């Protein structure tokens, strides 16, 4: 027990704000998991999937979206590594790229929505697709806002090699949003017959 007590004295690897973000991400994971549970429940109840009348999803734009988001996750991690190495300017650049890619994702997804040929009111598939990807999109918006605020702090010199919790926490959130997209992509595009 005393070893743990001593361990408290050294600077912990996971700071309070980082732990808070990890827990928040855990709660968000449960939030999305509920929707995925709904998806599989509804799908199991249907003889044919996708249900008749729904145009099949085309994978081309979705693939580009995936590439954009995965790249942005790599970029944000480079930003975190940069600031840990003391390279603040490099971190700023890579964070800026991340934000740009995030905005590109949003724009391209909005375009994709307009091309799909079915809407949220078109039965269970429409319900699931638009609500799940829509909520994800809202989380991307939140992530872009969060990273923009961090960018502001970075630019004003408020983050350093020793104290850069907002960037590290923001990166965790951003990576999580990417993982959710990968699950959506897998379920809606890879696992669904096209």
């Amino acid at each position: 027990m005393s070893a743990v007590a001593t361990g408290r004295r050294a600077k912990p690897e996971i700071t309070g704000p980082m732990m808070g973000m990890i827990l928040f991400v855990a709660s968000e994971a449960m939030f999305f998991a509920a929707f995925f549970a709904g998806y599989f429940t509804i799908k199991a109840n249907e003889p044919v999937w996708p249900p008749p009348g729904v145009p099949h999803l085309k994978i081309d734009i979705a693939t580009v979206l995936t590439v954009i988001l995965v790249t942005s996750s790599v970029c944000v991690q480079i930003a975190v590594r940069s600031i840990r190495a003391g390279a603040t300017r490099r971190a700023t650049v890579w964070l800026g790229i991340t934000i740009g890619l995030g905005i590109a994702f949003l724009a391209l997804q909005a375009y994709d929505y307009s091309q799909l040929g079915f809407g949220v009111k078109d039965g269970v598939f429409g319900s699931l697709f638009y609500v799940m990807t829509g909520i994800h999109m809202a989380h991307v918006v939140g992530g872009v806002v969060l990273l923009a605020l961090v960018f502001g702090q970075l630019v004003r010199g408020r983050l350093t090699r020793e104290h850069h919790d907002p960037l590290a926490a923001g990166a965790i959130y951003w990576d999580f949003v990417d993982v959710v997209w990968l699950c959506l992509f897998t379920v809606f595009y890879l696992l669904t017959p096209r």
Partner: protein
Amino acid sequence: MTITRSPAADVAPVPERGRLLSWLTTTDHKRIGILYLINSFSFFVIAGVFALLMRTELARPGTQIFAPHAYEELFTLHGTLMIFLVIFPLLAGFGNYFVPLQIGALDMAFPRINALSFWLLPVGGLTILSGFLVPGGAAACGWTCYAPLSEQLGTGGDLWIVGLILVGTASILGGINFIVTILRMRAPGMTVMRMPVFTWSILATSLLVTLAAPVLTAGLIMVFADRQLGTVFFDPSRGGVAILWQHVFWFFGHPEVYMLILGAWGIVTEIVAVFSGKPIFSYPGVVLSFLLITALSFSVWAHHMFATGAVELPFFSITTELISIPTGVLFFIWLGTMWRGKLRFEPPMLFALGFIAMFLIGGIDGVWAASPAMDFAIHDTYWVVAHLHYVLFGGTLFGVMAAMFYWFPKMTGRFLSRRLGIWQFWLQLAGFNLTFFPMHILGLRGMPRRIADYPPDLGWSFLNLVASIGAFVIATAMLLFFINIFLTLRKPRTAPDDPWGGNTLEWATTSPPPAHNFDALPPIRSDRPVFDLRTQGSGGDR
């Protein structure tokens, strides 16, 4: 035995002008804790009045006061408010006030988010209540609001959904706050196995709320989308699955009920130890039980759905029966704590003993429902109403009253009247049993839940009358409670640091504590640092 105190320990008086504003903008965990209590007791009065109205209607067969829709709004809001705006926030309020003190910390990890978590509560609660003002009235579907019925509700339904999303978000933020506080901000020497069991109970509760409450939020979004955006998650005529709501809701709902009791278990365990003059009989046993129950609570949800014929009955029956094992262990620990002790029957201990006696009944009567074949007979009857009130009222509310009498001197520097407390205890115990024990029998006689009226020829009338009389006895007890608070707050502050002979760190500072909580902390070498200090012995290193 005194703690060295600097002159700055006295609370600086706050100017009258800024007083209200200071409460509205506070981020001090102690004040936020008190705000939680005030908010909860206010909604308690509202939801309690709803209960009295319902019991008045049900006292005799036939419609006396309420047309069915009004009655249905009452039972919906009674359940929703009691669970989300009263019981859970009462425990969270005590947690807010006492967890940082018990671990020797200055405040919560995220004080401003803490304030936000609180203020979302009255906003959410008032949103739900505002349903009474809109056409169609408040939500009328039961606190569980099953689909597809939920899709037929008027605007009151949307207000219920939005209010709950606000309250749920608040509780998730609070849960994260508690976990980080407990894991990151303990004073030197306070290992996790030296934390007070109340702190453990809040940690367990917070794990549950962080992981389970988001599932409710997801379900609420689904039903809102079905109602307003044209989706069909729960509409079977277009591919939706009606019982999907029940799966999502109860996956949250069952952990929720543990969120509503764990804090009380923590409180009662500590109070029994203090007022027996003995250590907790098995501190590791308590921690282990809390953790096992927390984990198992995610595996039992479909025991609420046995009667659908759509779930795997043996699996959920086993997990439900398994969870009764660690729960039973707690009883043995409480008894063992009292064994060969020197019991003092101050009001905190009376209410704690009442908790044990009543929660035992609530736990046992749940066992009947855990067996699917038996559940087919008693599901959705007044047996379940009896069970849930024995655990939430006989259990948690008695625990809350124990906490109020125990911690009131610490929070305000004044003792609640012992005499009024004893009167309240006996009236509350009698009224509670008078109201809810007959409901077991009503359930066995086939009286279903959520009915505004019942026929006179089924043998339900007399017991309903008894239950209704009991409800007014409870109301009298509660009136005594509020009178007690009102009278006590006008008395001068006389409480010492440690009026009860406590064990945990909150008793190592003034009553009430200064803004910065502690001037000096005693050495922490066991789970009873104040006991150790008081007896000047080590108490054993643990």
